[in-house]
């Protein structure tokens, strides 16, 4: 924000007092000062000036728009190359990895480039998708749900996947066997309730979900809901305080099994 401050020195004298004050604040922070300090100055400015607030609102809308753009529906690609090709392209573009049946995993490299040879075998169904750390949101799931024979889906640490998204997963119920939601900040127990459609699920990972209010109880309820599924997540004893009768056991000798 150095440029705007520089031009403000041309302003009429009556504003100089306040502006110099802000500039002093800015000078106090090291140029490569941490994000937290920068954000509080902008927040401070937001509380006092309408146009700073408008600028921040614009930046916020732009961030949301960028995510929206990433999650466009590739209907044209689907017409050209079929649902598996379009879905695979969507995942690879987002930075995830795709595995076609009987083929190797296809991953983009650190520059985001990926091998284009999957277009040759895009009639082969996609078996597994690893969409960890991707920006998939509610609309982007349209592309994912086209992969009708998907067996394994990993949505670890996706920050835009929430309860609404989980309610859309039921079309994959026939084939999906493995699902991982570890580390998604917006998934709560309310979204986990609609996973009961996925009756073929054999492995579900619900560890590290910060929005779940009671992880131990949620794990028990999910295990009851999906009796054939191995639910990996929280140890259900987490959060239970150890009672006084457990302490002597530490000192006693281990009981032979």
């Amino acid at each position, binding site marked *: 924000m150095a440029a705007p401050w520089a031009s403000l020195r041309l302003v009429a004298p009556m504003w100089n007092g306040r502006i110099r004050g802000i500039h002093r604040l800015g000078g106090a922070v090291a140029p490569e000062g941490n994000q937290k300090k920068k954000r509080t100055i902008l927040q401070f400015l937001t509380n006092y000036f309408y146009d700073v607030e408008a*600028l921040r609102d614009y930046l916020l809308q732009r961030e949301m728009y960028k995510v929206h753009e990433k999650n466009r529906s590739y209907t044209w690609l689907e017409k050209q190359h079929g649902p598996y090709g379009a879905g695979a392209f969507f995942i690879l573009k987002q930075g995830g990895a795709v595995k076609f049946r009987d083929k190797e995993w296809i991953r983009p490299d650190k520059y985001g480039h990926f091998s284009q040879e999957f277009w040759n075998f895009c009639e082969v169904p996609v078996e597994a998708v690893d969409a960890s750390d991707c920006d998939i949101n509610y609309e982007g799931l349209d592309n994912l749900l086209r992969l009708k024979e998907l067996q394994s889906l990993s949505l670890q640490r996706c920050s835009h996947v929430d309860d609404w998204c989980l309610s859309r997963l*039921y079309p994959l119920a026939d084939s999906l066997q493995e699902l991982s939601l570890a580390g998604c900040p*917006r998934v709560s127990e309310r979204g986990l309730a609609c996973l009961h459609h996925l009756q073929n699920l054999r492995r579900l990972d619900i560890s590290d979900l910060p929005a779940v209010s009671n992880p131990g109880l949620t794990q028990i309820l999910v295990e009851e809901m999906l009796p054939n599924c191995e639910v990996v997540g929280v140890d259900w004893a987490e959060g239970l305080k150890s009672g006084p009768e457990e302490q002597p056991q530490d000192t006693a000798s281990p009981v032979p099994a």
Partner: protein
Amino acid sequence: MIRRVLPHGMGRGLLTRRPGTRRGGFSLGKVEDHKRVLWFWVVPNLRLCVLQDPKPWPTLAGQWVGLGKGEYLAVVDAPPLDLRFNPSGYLLLASEKDAAAMESNVKVQRQEGAKVSLMSPDQLRNKFPWINTEGVALASYGMEDEGWFDPWCLLQGLRRKVQSLGVLFCQGEVTRFVSSSQRMLTTDDKAVVLKRIHEVHVKMDRSLEYQPVECAIVINAAGAWSAQIAALAGIGEGPPGTLQGTKLPVEPRKRYVYVWHCPQGPGLETPLVADTSGAYFRREGLGSNYLGGRSPTEQEEPDPANLEVDHDFFQDKVWPHLALRVPAFETLKVQSAWAGYYDYNTFDQNGVVGPHPLVVNMYFATGFSGHGLQQAPGVGRAVAEMVLKGRFQTIDLSPFLFTRFYLGEKIQENNII
């Protein structure tokens, strides 16, 4: 009671706000508009038109999704909106005689893009083993984007967003409208008196002070008390059977909601189940608690003068139906209960939206008879379009105008809970 009068200057004007003035000219309340414009003095002619409209979502469901996920209501520096939405869906059960109506309803819903599945009693037993399907011919189950949420969170989110856009909230009670009338001739040369409201007198709580608020438009969204507001504006004063004499047929009706605990009850996947008898229940939280109730019949209507809960109503009229439908509910323990008002439209139990034909600047958004929350975003958009453009644009709500009370055209909905 909050009766909101929307200030007509609800704009996002940035550079149009001069430093130092207060919006709305209210002298009541603790509203302070202390912000300035940084660039105003620097580049007075620069139009920073940076606030963009959010992308128009194609479907109505998409609108609710955009709203619910907080994208419409995103505010800088505030945590994202969490509606506590439970996407578990609604399970509506129909007996033999209602099955045809349910099928046609589901057809309409599917046309509008809703993902609803119809289930036979066998499929129902397969999916939800705790249900007793005696007397059920057909069931409709919402698969996607359907469920319940926390209305308080939505209200706070909407308030927060509109406050960030510049709207002022004031609380008080509307006691009087000051209006002017004009006698005009219709195209068939009949005399009609058109009224225009100029001022609203808003009385402060627990005091005799009132603030006259000059307004261009008044929107009557007073819920169960809308009829009183309409009467203040002179709606319904006239010979019965004429347009002047048509009152707003909205009255408060008391409804009870009970919360009970049942340790062996249905599990996490329970949707909101609406029985053939009108009794409904849903899961509440993770601790085997359930919430539900039933709409009383016309003869059983409780007195709306107070909000006292009648526990005998649960014992006699709600519990037997629940226990029949879900055998696990034979042993349950009521934890708490409360009562609330429906803004019940005695004419056809559907909402009134749009302007009044004679009081020119009063718009209605009331009378939804228990469906207000669900229809609120659509109605809000419709009223905004009506106010700004003079006609409905996105959805045509002309069957819901006030004039249908005079013309006698009812819009009936099947299967009301």
